[in-house]
């Protein structure tokens, strides 16, 4: 069997990042390793040697990958290694604690016809939380060698792994998908006749998921035959009219659930199950919605609204700026600067210092800071993906598309960014609906903070605002979904484990976000200040405010509110801060405050968001959305004012 001039057999290690792959690599190879860039890329790959039962092997440690369908450069390189290095054995290293999440890739590797050995690593940690994995049963079901290990300290499983590699025989296991999918796969793979490392079944699956690199390869090998393959693939994608990518990964999930039945047993570790309970509660509509309200109440209302926008802003704005800094700076300017216009520019009504710096430092920063703290705590607990799942269920009931959940949730951070994220949605229709709703009814973090702070002082106002926002969101979403019909692909998201937030993570995220936020808004506030002063001095502002006055009267608002709306177009938070000024000057009664807050939240997105909207959706769509949103904002404001005055609520 063995020839004397044998070439070294290759063992390739693959798996997600953080599953202890490098430890396995080091344990297997000892110190004879080299690290070099993979040809033609900047990605590093380690190679080493090892000897098993007298035979030499080359061991390759690949960059982390989540799936055979690559997204990142790292994953592309990892896959290329699998395609090009003709492995003797592929060792898929997975984390015992995350079997469910990682097993689908094992399936992909097996169905690609690769010689897979599964190494379930980090068993010690899994056992510590009361988890037991039946290795023998899993091996029987998968029909490939499965080794349990903990390579960290004890090098547990190393010898079993070596044995598995020594005795390796390729298995012929296949896992069947739903019948219709199987028929498609079969039909297409029949057409391919070239010679490939991966089997044709898995190549077909990747073609169906529109993998361009694989398409190139197949084109290369098939030559004239490729045209028929391409046509069959396109026809299938067209016929199915569903997200094949999602469909295939759901099928894989289904198979994995079947495979894992009876394999994992959980001893009653109380902590573990409690986190699981909480996790389930957050996603069940009956418990999830009340939980969401509690999170909103504590995180946003109490912490951001009460503490940030109340306590801290009062101190900075009232004590530091109004009483101390402003009089001092104004006095300084008046003494030393003889020119009226420069005084106006620096410390006037819209001055760089009195408006720009004060808004940015005394009003926006504390609010955004506390918001970011709350956001980071919630984020670090793993709550957001669960929220996405929860909201998805609620959305579906009113005919909205579940996939839009992610950009919507992100929109509460910043609508501009969320608008970019609508790119990930499947159809143009969904993108348009999502973009519209973002522009209309999702307040960004800064705006929400200011508004929460403003309204939380007035009983009932916050309630009216929330009901209006949710109402408009659902109504417009519902109508849009009716007008723009289409399929509703299933929404699926991987749910990471829930855990206690870590102070250090929260701190890093908050500080980092505050830094970029400040860097972004500060120049804008300065520019806005300059424009406003120029407007004031030239009389253009007065004219613009005059244009707005009739609209303000329709809404039942004082003329002074015009300015807040004009500010609002620069940035949402800027407009909200303008509102804050009006409120502290006592110019707004509860009804007016609520109407102004609702209208301003619905009102046109900021300049940045409009620009991104234009870039993503084009002039026609973005202008339509712009006018639609503006019209709706004022219409709702008008109706709300009438309604509140009529019912006497808030008066």
């Amino acid at each position, binding site marked *: 069997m063995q020839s004397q001039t044998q070439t070294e057999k290759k063992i390739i290690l693959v798996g997600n990042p953080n599953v202890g792959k490098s430890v396995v690599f080091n344990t297997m190879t000892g110190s004879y390793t080299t690290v070099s860039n993979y040809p033609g890329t900047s990605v590093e790959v380690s190679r080493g040697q090892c000897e098993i039962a007298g035979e030499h092997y080359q061991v390759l440690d690949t960059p982390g990958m989540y799936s055979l369908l690559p*997204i*990142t450069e790292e994953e592309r390189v990892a896959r290329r290694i699998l395609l090009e290095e003709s492995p003797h054995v592929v060792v898929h290293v997975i984390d015992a604690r995350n079997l469910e999440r990682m097993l689908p890739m094992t399936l992909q590797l097996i169905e690609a016809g690769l010689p897979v050995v599964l190494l379930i690593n980090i068993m010690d940690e899994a056992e510590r939380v009361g988890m037991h994995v039946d290795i023998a049963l899993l091996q029987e079901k998968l029909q490939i060698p499965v080794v349990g290990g903990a390579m960290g300290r004890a090098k547990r499983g190393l010898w079993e792994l070596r044995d598995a590699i020594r005795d390796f025989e390729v298995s012929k296991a296949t896992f069947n998908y739903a019948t219709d999918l199987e028929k498609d796969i079969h039909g297409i793979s029949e057409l391919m006749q070239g010679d490939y490392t991966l089997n044709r079944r898995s190549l077909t699956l990747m073609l169906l998921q529109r993998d361009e690199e694989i398409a190139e390869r197949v084109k290369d090998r098939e030559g004239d035959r490729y045209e028929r393959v391409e046509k069959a693939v396109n026809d299938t994608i067209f016929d199915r009219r569903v997200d094949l990518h999602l469909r295939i990964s759901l099928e894989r999930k289904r198979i994995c659930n079947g495979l894992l039945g009876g394999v994992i047993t959980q001893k009653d570790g109380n902590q573990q199950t409690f986190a699981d309970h909480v996790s389930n509660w957050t996603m069940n509509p009956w418990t999830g919605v009340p939980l969401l309200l509690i999170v909103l109440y504590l995180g946003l209302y109490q912490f951001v609204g009460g503490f940030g926008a109340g306590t801290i802003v009062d101190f900075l704005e009232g004590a530091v700026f109004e009483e101390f800094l402003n009089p001092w700076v104004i006095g300084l300017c008046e003494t030393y600067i003889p020119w009226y216009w420069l005084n106006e520019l620096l410390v006037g009504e819209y001055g760089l210092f009195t408006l720009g710096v004060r808004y940015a430092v005394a009003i926006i920063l504390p609010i955004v800071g506390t918001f970011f703290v709350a956001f980071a705590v919630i984020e670090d607990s793993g709550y957001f993906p669960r929220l996405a799942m929860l909201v998805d269920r609620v959305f579906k009931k009113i005919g909205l598309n579940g996939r839009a959940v992610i*950009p919507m949730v992100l929109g509460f*951070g910043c609508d*501009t*960014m969320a608008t970019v994220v609508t790119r990930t949605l499947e159809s143009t229709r969904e993108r348009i609906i999502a973009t519209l709703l973002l522009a209309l009814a999702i307040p960004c973090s800064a705006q929400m903070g200011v508004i929460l702070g403003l309204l939380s002082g007035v009983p009932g106002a916050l309630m009216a605002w929330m009901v209006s926002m949710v109402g408009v969101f659902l109504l417009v979403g519902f109508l849009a979904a009716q007008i723009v019909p289409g399929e509703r692909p299933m929404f699926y998201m991987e749910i990471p484990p829930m855990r206690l937030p870590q102070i250090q993570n929260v701190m890093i995220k908050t500080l980092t976000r505050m*830094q970029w936020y400040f860097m*972004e808004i500060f120049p804008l506030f300065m520019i806005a200040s300059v424009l406003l002063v120029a407007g004031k001095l030239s009389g253009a502002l007065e004219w613009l405010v005059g244009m707005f006055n009739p609209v303000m009267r329709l809404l039942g608002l004082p003329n002074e509110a015009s300015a807040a709306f004009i500010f609002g177009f620069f940035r949402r938070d800027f407009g909200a801060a303008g509102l804050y000024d009006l409120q502290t000057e006592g110019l707004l009664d509860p009804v007016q405050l609520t109407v102004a807050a609702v209208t301003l939240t619905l009102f046109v997105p900021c300049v940045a968001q409009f*620009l991104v909207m234009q870039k993503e959706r084009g002039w026609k769509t973005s202008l339509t959305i712009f006018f639609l949103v503006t019209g709706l904002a004022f219409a709702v404001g008008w109706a709300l004012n009438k309604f509140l005055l009529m019912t006497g609520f808030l008066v």
Partner: protein
Amino acid sequence: MKCTFCEHELTPEMLREKGCGGCLGGCRKIHCPYCGQENPIVPELLEKFLKDDKHKA
């Protein structure tokens, strides 16, 4: 670092070039290619400070 939304592993080197284009003064965020989440890039100074802290501990 991990994506704060979907928890996929992200490396700044591979993602820094993919700014969203919507940020003034350059993008200070890593946009996750898996879910689109905008992850803040930790400033070098802060990172250095935290690392020093860890070494001392």
